[in-house]
């Protein structure tokens, strides 16, 4: 084969890839891009620019709560963080970690008489698309495992303009022993729809990342709902056994499905 940079036909250069492009079926990473000199071709460069423009759009699209409720097939307790809008949310993470006053009152009014074992909380985070798309599927896989473990579950809550820690405050008001927060991770170029899962034992305001266990990249083409639900249920059972979460709780699950999903 000829050197990829030694081409007299511009159309051929546009089509040109590195000879190992067959490896792309193993990963969504931008491998075998080819080169002109040591740089990207115009076509590859424009692909990147377009992906970036689309990711920027994903950050700023609001969560559609009515559609989410319809997809879930169950009522959602709607609460909001102290960040009044997206611009404030992006610049004030401290506001995104706390509930506004109305939301506190709304949750206090529905606090179960018997303390629930687990609180399930959804939030938009930095990609409402992830929550919109993957929260229903994940919960369909996860809820039966919680039931199997004999754990009671608080009413499902959704927080808008929310960060991970807002789940702690929500769960504390509901009196839950453990919170599972499902939140949109910040969009990447190839995946603007990754859902992240954060488990926190004894949730309360002031918990830190060291107190949490995380499962990330839950999305079609990423970690499957079933895999994530299996891991989350395992961590939940261990958290109840050890009465803790975070760095003291090691995920010792072995992958359920050895043939992990890859991009087509």
């Amino acid at each position, binding site marked *: 084969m000829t050197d990829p940079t030694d081409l007299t036909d511009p159309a051929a250069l546009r089509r040109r890839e590195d000879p190992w492009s067959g490896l792309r079926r193993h990963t969504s990473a*931008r491998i075998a891009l080819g080169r002109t000199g040591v740089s990207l071709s115009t076509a590859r460069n424009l692909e990147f620019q377009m*992906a*970036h423009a689309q990711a920027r759009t994903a950050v700023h699209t609001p969560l559609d709560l009515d559609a989410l409720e319809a997809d879930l097939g169950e009522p959602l307790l709607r609460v909001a963080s102290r960040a009044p809008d997206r611009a404030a949310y992006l*610049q004030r*993470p401290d506001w995104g970690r706390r509930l506004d006053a109305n939301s506190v009152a709304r949750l206090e009014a529905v606090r179960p008489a018997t303390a629930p074992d687990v609180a399930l909380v959804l939030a938009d985070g930095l990609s409402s698309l992830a929550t919109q798309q993957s929260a229903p599927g994940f919960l369909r896989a996860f809820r039966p495992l919680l039931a199997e473990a004999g754990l009671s579950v608080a009413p499902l809550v959704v927080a808008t303009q929310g960060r991970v820690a807002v789940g702690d405050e929500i769960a504390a008001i509901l009196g839950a022993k453990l919170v599972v927060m499902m939140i949109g991770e*910040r969009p*990447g170029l190839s995946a603007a729809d990754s859902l992240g899962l954060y488990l926190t034992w004894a949730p309360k305001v002031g918990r*830190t990342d*060291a107190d949490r266990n995380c499962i990330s990249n839950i999305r079609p083409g990423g970690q499957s709902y079933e895999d994530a639900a299996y891991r989350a249920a395992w961590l939940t059972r261990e958290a109840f056994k050890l009465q803790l979460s975070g760095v003291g709780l*090691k995920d010792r699950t072995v992958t359920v499905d050895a043939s992990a999903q890859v991009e087509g």
Partner: protein
Amino acid sequence: MYSHHVGAELFRFPDLRTLMARATPLRSGDQLAGLAAATDVERVAAQAALADLPLKTFLSEVVVPYDTDEVTRLIIDTHDSAAFAPVSHMTVGDFRDWLLSDAADSAALAALAPGLTPEMVAAVSKLCRTQDLILIASKCRVVTKFRNTLGLEKRLATRLQPNHPTDDLRGIAASTFDGLMYGSGDAVIGINPATDNLHATVELLHLLDEVIQEYAIPTQSCVLSHVTNTMAAIEEGAPVDLTFQSIAGTEAANTSFGITLDLLTEGHEATQSLKRGTVGQNCMYFETGQGSCLSADAHHGVDQQTLEARAYAVARKYQPLLVNTVVGFIGPEYLYDGRQIIRAGLEDHFCGKLLGVPMGCDICYTNHAEADQNDMDVLLTLLGAAGINYIMGIPGADDVMLSYQTTSFHDALYARRVLGLRPAPEFEEWLDRMGLMAADGAFTPASQPPAALSQRLSLLEAQ
């Protein structure tokens, strides 16, 4: 109490940490913390007051309390006053002038490093323009070794970062192959795992070790998991070259990461006991980034750039092979746009190098920041000129696991060509020998996989 007159107006700064914060070039994280100067005039007034401050002040007045913060105790208790002697009479302003002078050559700066505290270098950085940050840092050499030699003059290494959203071994192998074809990977082949699952970590460590052994690549591997995970992997007999950990500049922030200095000492000792290095035994890899203390609500009213410099004091205790600031990863609430990210990247490199830390930089941004690849090109070029030890290498600059953009394999080759920067010598020799990239200074990758790699490639393609 510190103060400075501007005409008839007197600007007062009640303590050292406030003076430092007000003197810091504007960034969103200090605004978020309520620490930034209210006006441009107040900022320059603070810089003027800071310029008059004797360097010795930093040994008697601390910004985070000694009694309650083990990072402060580390800084004060390990200060080398003999090394500090040559500059001990200077003010911060004098110190900047001296750093720019011809007297401050590589040997003088290396000898001085143990005598400097993070607060001293943070203070002087606040008085530096962009070109000062580049010129001074370019005189610092911090050389470290494991299976190759990093940080030599006119060398630029890369971390090959073959992340995959589900840690799929074939996907990681594919990105690793792509990177090696583009001459990437001399700093480390380092994977951010998708989960903190111990079994997955051990599997990934074995994969990387096999590749490195099979082709006798003069480099090292790392799975960037929590230090306790890596220690558990070591106990299971996994092939651990480097132990990774994210670190920060206060005890409280480190607590939020689930670490203490003692735990890092344990991790360091466990890793060193494996003796897997061939040309040296620097075996720790740390990542940092401005804003991490504030993010953990553990900033003590200190500006984020000063706290970042304190993280380097933590790093240097363990003679790491690699330290990098993940400068734009944390988001717009700490570094709002390309301009702030560029400034922060140069400051971090400058402060780390003056303290004797082998600085690299993850030149990066997220999709919710006001930045794009053009800003990264600028920072890459400036850090290349400043003599950065290493940068990241990712297929197409797009990390499909961590969802952010950093520098690509192509970007590293751009920097090599424009600035004449070569890979680590052992790795460059290996690239040449393998037929991946001739050591002729042109930095042109091979168009075809060399015979030695093509069999494994065929196998991988067929899987």
